[in-house]
């Protein structure tokens, strides 16, 4: 029941009408598109999704299957494994070497990528992830002398600031892996390249050495090395000044913390020699490990992985299988909905409305 309140004229100037203006915007009459979920739109959409996803999935799966990958665990926990001695007796300070023999059944063509893999290593632990100082790693002089509080307890050592500070830097992976091809009894060392293993933006934007006079050891002279490192940061690669200090590529790769507890990080590249011979031939190989990194205390595992690459990266069957599955389910769902619509669907578009 509405009472129609009309203001009197003498008060009319103070009371405005509360009726909204008769514009398209305020009366909700704007031109519009009204999509409605009818059988004519939804069912073809499902079939199209199904028919598009299945070939994509097959393509991804085939591409992934054509990538060659080889993985070998060299932690040394089995009783007779070559690195068992190193695993059980090593500490942070001792150096132990071992050799693992393996065989490649297929030749690897094109550029081959050598990764090291760790398992049960939680680089995604929150306190660990925060334990770094990015302004120090960017070459800021004041952060070099006074690192961030986030780096505690890896911030100062014997009264001197640690460079690079933090738990991530402290746990740098320091095994050395060398690969030999056994060619009728003689060993041929495979050429490993360490340039180009880190992201270009990391190496050139995010990480910078502090500037100053003299060489790196002078610039870093008032700092201490991280507690678990055998050598200070300016000795990471003395032979190459573009790979020394904070811009050392192995260091940069390690500092990009992994998302999951089982991860692999790029260690070296094996560039292709020429288009006629495969980069890694079929045959016997030896991996020479300088076993420095102890993982048994947290039940971790270490692996070496050799892999070729395609336009979608390394071997990744999940994406292909997921696309095929989703495409099939979509198509099947489309068929089911078509049957349901045909048998039970409400065909009426005009309403029979009781009043």
């Amino acid at each position, binding site marked *: 029941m509405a009472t129609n309140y009309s203001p009197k004229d003498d008060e009319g100037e103070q009371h405005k009408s509360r009726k909204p203006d008769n514009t398209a915007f305020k009366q909700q009459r704007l031109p519009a598109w009204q999509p409605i979920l009818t059988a004519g739109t939804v069912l073809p959409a499902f079939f199209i999704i199904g028919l598009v996803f299945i070939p994509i999935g097959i393509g991804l799966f085939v591409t992934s299957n054509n990538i060659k990958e080889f993985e070998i665990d060299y932690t040394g926990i089995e009783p007779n494994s070559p690195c068992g001695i190193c695993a059980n007796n090593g500490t942070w300070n001792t150096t132990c070497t071992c050799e693992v023999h393996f065989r490649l059944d297929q030749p690897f063509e094109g550029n081959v990528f050598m990764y090291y893999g760790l398992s049960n290593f939680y680089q995604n632990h929150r306190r660990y992830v925060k334990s770094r100082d990015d302004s120090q790693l960017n070459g800021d002089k004041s952060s070099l002398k006074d690192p961030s509080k986030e780096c505690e307890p890896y911030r100062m050592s014997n009264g001197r600031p640690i460079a690079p500070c933090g738990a991530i830097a402290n746990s740098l992976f320091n095994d050395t892996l060398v690969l030999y091809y056994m060619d009728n009894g003689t060993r041929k060392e495979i050429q490993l390249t360490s340039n180009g*293993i880190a*992201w270009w933006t990391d190496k050139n934007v*995010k990480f910078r050495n502090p500037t100053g006079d003299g060489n790196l050891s002078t610039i870093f002279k008032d700092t201490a090395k991280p507690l678990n490192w055998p050598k200070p940061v300016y000795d990471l690669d003395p032979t190459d000044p573009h790979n020394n200090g904070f811009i050392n590529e192995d260091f940069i790769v390690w500092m990009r*913390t992994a998302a999951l507890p089982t991860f692999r990080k790029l260690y070296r590249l094996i560039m292709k020699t020429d288009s006629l011979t495969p980069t890694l031939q079929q045959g016997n190989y030896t991996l020479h490990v300088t076993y420095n990194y102890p993982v048994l205390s947290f039940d971790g595992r270490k692996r070496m992985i050799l892999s070729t690459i395609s336009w979608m*990266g390394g071997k990744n069957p999940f994406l292909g299988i997921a696309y095929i599955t989703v495409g099939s389910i979509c198509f099947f769902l489309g068929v089911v909905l078509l049957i349901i619509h045909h048998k039970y669907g*409400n065909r009426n578009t005009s*309403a029979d409305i009781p009043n």
Partner: protein
Amino acid sequence: MVGAGWLQGASQCEWWELVGYRDVPEQRSLQYPKLYEPGQLNLLFNKREFFICIAQGIYTSTILFFVPYGTLADSTRDDGTHMADYQSFAVTVATSLVIVVSVQIGIDTGYWTAINHFFIWGSLAIYFTILFAMQSAGLFEIFPNQFRFVANANNTLVQPTVWFTIILTTAICIVPVVAFRFLKLDLKPRLADTV
């Protein structure tokens, strides 16, 4: 992750009001007063609807985590370098989330005026603008410890694997919603849908 699911669940429930949201022209509202019945009987927002929203939020947040997890776990970029790091994972999941929510809102919007187009496409554009701005080298130079994700978007969002993952996640989240909604419309249409 659950927070993201809640956000997504809340966004597609029917109790938000956008400017210009309507499903029936006003002349028909006057002709068919029975259209007002669902509102009076609280049929559109009650405990059952709320729990359906929550269930959808949980499903979406599970998919938004596990599908990128499965894809990125052992992946590398097309030059062999790192892609399974936590920053790339975060950018992938965040981008998937924004796209899934935008598509969901798009499906929910039954009445596309110019304003709706502007806000929905605009929010996607703003997301990418802010993403690239926050991960730019310029901001990193000023505040290195706050803007650590420098150049991550540039490196991650050019990888085909990441975009395939985003499209897959969107499809898995949206297809069941559309299927349920179509079945509901087909078998038990509300009065408002047929007018």
